[in-house]
Structure formats: C-alpha cells, structure tokens
C-alpha cells in the first residue's frame, strides 16, 4: 500500500508487437511481462528494447546491465533479463517477482500444445480473438482436446463466425454427448437462425431443459435491451429519426472498427 514513485513517461513508446500496444513506461513494461508471461517472445529482451530503456526512460544503468548480459552470453537467459527489468521497475514486490519466476520456469517446461492453449487463453482475455483462434487451432493440431475445442468454438461465436462455431460444437457433441455443446448450438440458432444444426438434435433434448434454455435466452435478451448503450440508441431514435440515421452511421462504423480490432 502506498504511492509508487515513477519516472516520467517516454517521449516515444516501445511497440510491443505481441500485444499490439505502445508501452510508455517501465511500469507498463513490467505489467505486461508479469500479466502475460505466455506471450513473451524468446528474444524479448534485445538491443532494441535496451536502447529504448536507455534513451527514452533514461534508465542507463538498467540498460547497461541488460546489454552486458546480452553481449557476454551466446545463449541468452531471457528469464534473468526479464527478472532484472521487474526488479528495477519499482512496481512489483520481491515476493511477487519470485512467484513470477516460478510461473515463468513452469511455462518453459510445459508441452507445446498446453502452451498454445494458454497462449490462446491469454489472447482471448486481451480481446485479441484472431490470435486466440490461431493459438487454439495450433494446439488442436498437435493434440485433440475437447476443452480446447470448446474454447475455440466460443471464440468463433465472439467474432460472429457462427457456422464454424456450430460445426465445432456438433463435433464435440458427437464425440462426447456433451449437453453444453447442444446448449451452445441452441443459442447459435437463436443468434443466427440460418444455422440450423440444432434441429438435427432437438429430439434428444427433453422439454424441461429446452424450456430452461429458452428462459435463459429470453432473460439475456431482456438484459441486453436494458443495457445503457441500447437505451442511448433508443432515446436517439425516439427524439429524431434523422439524428438516429446520422448516429447509426457513426455507430456502425465504430462497431466495424471494433470487430476488425478483435481479429
């Protein structure tokens, strides 16, 4: 608890390609390292990063230490360099850094398909759905796993690729007889009536379960109707139709942009 004193931000950011974001301070750099260790590339600490640390963050001593490690060793121990950055950032406690080190070590020793699955999870939580799909697909290529399939199908739904999602859920249902897969197929049909996969399996669902799903779906629709954003659009529509048309243009453009960013 307290106020962590920081240096001033960099004038020019460091572009972290894996996350597609600009980083402006040593604390932000530490944050992304600590929270997304799965996506740290094997050559993360390089001369480009040390130059940025020295020139933009004015942390010459840290940059010199990192460069020294980089120059003396042929096989660079990235973990050591990353931990050095965390230690110098005045952001995480020693205890947290030790915990990170343990996690980071584990990550390096896990199977490739597990790693790719975790990578997919990380991208999904960051809202990078395109990259999440790629990771899950690669993981499945190496090792078939229903849980990963479920995640992949869920990601397809998030980016509104309902047909692909439905095919996957069907495959899962056929293999595992999972009721959840059927439920997802049912919801896909609600969201995109053209995808009728659920109709093939409707007879195997008992009436009570179906009623329960219907209720859940209706509740979700009601919640969505009362969402602040929906209300805002509805209010504009009530006030003036021409204003609504103008607003709609902007909103559609915004949603398109958001959708593209997800991919």
């Amino acid at each position, binding site marked *: *608890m*307290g*106020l*962590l*004193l*920081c*240096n*001033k*931000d960099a004038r020019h*950011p460091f572009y972290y390609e894996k996350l597609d*974001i*600009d*980083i*402006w*301070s040593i*604390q*932000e750099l530490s*944050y*992304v390292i600590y929270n997304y260790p799965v996506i740290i590339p094997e050559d993360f600490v390089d001369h480009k990063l040390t130059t940025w640390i020295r020139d933009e963050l004015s942390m010459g001593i840290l940059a010199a230490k990192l460069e020294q490690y980089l120059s003396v060793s042929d096989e660079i121990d990235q973990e050591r360099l990353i931990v050095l950055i965390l230690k110098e950032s*005045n*952001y995480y*406690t*020693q205890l947290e850094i030790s915990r990170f080190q343990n996690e980071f070590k584990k990550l390096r020793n896990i199977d490739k398909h597990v790693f790719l699955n975790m990578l997919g999870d990380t991208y999904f939580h960051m809202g990078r759905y395109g990259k999440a799909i790629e990771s899950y697909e690669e993981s499945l290529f190496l090792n078939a796993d229903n849980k990963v399939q479920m995640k992949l199908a869920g990601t397809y739904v998030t980016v509104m690729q309902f047909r692909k999602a439905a095919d996957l859920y069907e495959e899962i249902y056929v293999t595992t007889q999972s009721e959840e897969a059927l439920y997802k197929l049912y919801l896909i049909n609600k969201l995109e009536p053209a995808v009728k996969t659920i109709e093939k399996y409707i007879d195997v669902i008992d009436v009570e379960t179906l009623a329960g799903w219907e209720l859940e779906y209706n509740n979700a629709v009601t919640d969505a109707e009362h969402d602040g954003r929906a209300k805002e659009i509805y209010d504009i529509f009530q006030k003036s139709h021409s204003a609504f048309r103008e607003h709609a243009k902007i909103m559609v453009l915004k949603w398109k942009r958001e959708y593209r960013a997800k991919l």
Partner: protein
Amino acid sequence: MSRYIGISLNDDYTCICINDKTISTYHPTVIARDKNDDTWTIGEDAYKSTLAGSGVIVDKLLSLIEKNGTATIARVKYHAVDILAHYFHELLGKDSIKADEDLVAITIRKPSREVVVRIKEALIRAGVHEDNIYILSHTESFAHFVLDQDPNLYNRMVGMFELNNQCLYYYEMHVSRGTRRYVMVAHEAEEEAFNLDILKTASGGKIADKILTTVAERVMGKNYYSSIFLSGRGFQDTNFATNFMNYICKKRRVLIEPGMFAIGAEIYVKNKSEGKGEDYMILCDTRSKSDVSVKVVVNEKVESLPIVRAGEPWMDTCSSYDMILDDQDFIDFQVTSITKPQRPLRLRMMLDSFPERENRTTKVRMTTEFRDADTLRVTVKDLGFGDIFPASDKEIVEEIDLSDK
C-alpha cells in the same frame, strides 16, 4: 566585467546600488519620451524635458505595472511593460555602459506573481538575460542586508523603520540559532505615515518626531533588540527626530542606511552569483515557511518525498511527480512549520473520484505550485496506465493552507 545591481522600486523613487554596497543613488521613478522622436529620459532629466516642453512624462510606474495599464504618448499607446522596459534600459545605461553581464535584483514591497512576470519581461526587453533577474520583497532585502552585517548586530531581534513619502513601515527580524538556523522577517504598515514635505519646516519636523516616537514606543515596547536600522529617504537627515533617535538609541546600536533595500538586493545577487549559501534560512513573505512532503514507496521502502522546502522562494517553487496508486486512493501530505516543528500537520487528499481500475494501474501526476505565500495548490491528474488503461483526464485540485495558525 559583470555588474551586480540592486534596484528598489516604488512609485516615487527608485534607489539603485551597483557593485558597491556602500553607495546607493535615488532617482524619481518617472520616464519621459520626446514628442518628436523615440528618445527616452528618466528621473530628473525626464522632469527637465517635460518642463522644456519637449517630453511627455509618465509617472507612478510601479502602480502602472501592477495594474497592467497603458500610457499614450504622442499618439502611441504603450503598455506598462513597454514603458518599464524603456525605464530599465535608461536606468541601467544599456546604451552607454558595456558590461559583460548584468545581474539584477529588483526589490518591491509586495511582489505578486503577475507583477513579477511583468517586471521580468520588462528587464528582459531592457537587455538583461532572463537567468540573471531576481525579484525580491523589501522584507527579504532587509534580511539580506542585515545578514551581511557584523553578526553582533543580529544576535537577537532586529528592528527597522522605513520612512518615505506617505509611507512608514516597521520591520522585525527574529533570529533562531537552533538546529535549523533561521531568521523570520515580517513588516507592518503604520497608519501614522506622513508627507515628507512637512520636514521642510521646524514645526513640521517636530510633529514628525512626535509621530515617530509614538510609533517606536508602541511597536518596540519592552523588547530587547540587538540593533535598530533606519531606512528610506525620510531618514537621510535625522536632525528633525531628536526624541525618536534618543528613544531608539537606548542601550542598542542604531544604523542608518537610506538605500537599504537596494543594497540588500545587490548583496543577494552578488552572493547568488558567487555561489554563497545562506547561513540562515530566511522565512519571509517571498519564502516558504514550511516543509511539505509526501510519503512514497521506492523499492518497497517508504520514503519522504520533499515537495516544498522551507526557505525556498515560493514563486519559483513548483514540482511535478508521477506516481502509481498501490492499494490506496489518497495522498497524505505532511506539513512541518519551521517555527513549530514539533507539531507537523497531516493532510489527506482523497482521489476516490478517479475511475476504479485493477490495482496499480492508475498513474497520477501530482503538480504543486504556490498561489501565494501561504497557499500551496495541488493538482492531481489521472493518467490511467498508458494504452493499457486509458486516462480519464480527471483532475482534482486542492489547496493547502501553510499559514501558521
């Protein structure tokens, strides 16, 4: 060769001291511009050119700059800063004297931030380098003057009377020689101020003597003084003030220096350029009287981050720090008055109106700046956390009262 220049400025007279702390000269604070060409004269020469009908005079230059007013001469409208720039240019003899560098300290009675900015601008336009300009109050100049004297003259309290036209002030300087050596200086205007023209007659002189004696008895009471100083044009000749002089000279030394403020300013600027530190911390109307700090965490250790140090010129004191909130939504300040160090004041500034985010992902920029000698304005701005958690740009502004209550 560099010139060290102290200038005491008021509406009537300007007192200037250049390089020699024993000599100060007076000039009326007036400027005249020739009606036909862009020639400027100041002081007595300005009066002469006006009497000759060739010049147009502008007076009360300090009031003009305080009001940020204008003056129209020969159909040309001049802003206060333009007029004062010409005045300084002539006063410093910038055309005729080729000094390598002028280091100038201006002393005025009440230096507000706005007036200081305008005076600095005028001096820059007059040819003085920005880094060589200092603005002090009369109170601070008095402190510099006294501290430059024999230490025996200020081993206890020091008093000073300033007598100018319609202006009678009493100054007091308390000296503390504890663990932190400091002098505390303050002044007060006396209501009994009078026009110096009354000194031209014997009866007027007697009245003036009576007034000064009454004031001295009231303000000095039974206090023990190391010394008493007299300053201002009214004390260029003290023959009229027999009773007053008898009263103040009892068991103490009295020194008369009419140009004390200008000399004090010259001493300051010279010490500054020679890198001499101040033996005593000066606490006065242009200096901060308290230490202000914030507790911060550096490498898991709690440290005190000084924002304001007592004795610093408050007008030049501003700070800006970036901090990350770690499981707290407030900033605690500690204000320690130099005169009451045993009772530091703790103040909390709440930041709970900033957006709620994951812990340690709200960075704030805290900037501090003095509004006046007793009020520190603190502005805290939400910076978010880079592109990961965008800033809301919300700002919280609060003021810390540093006056000794």
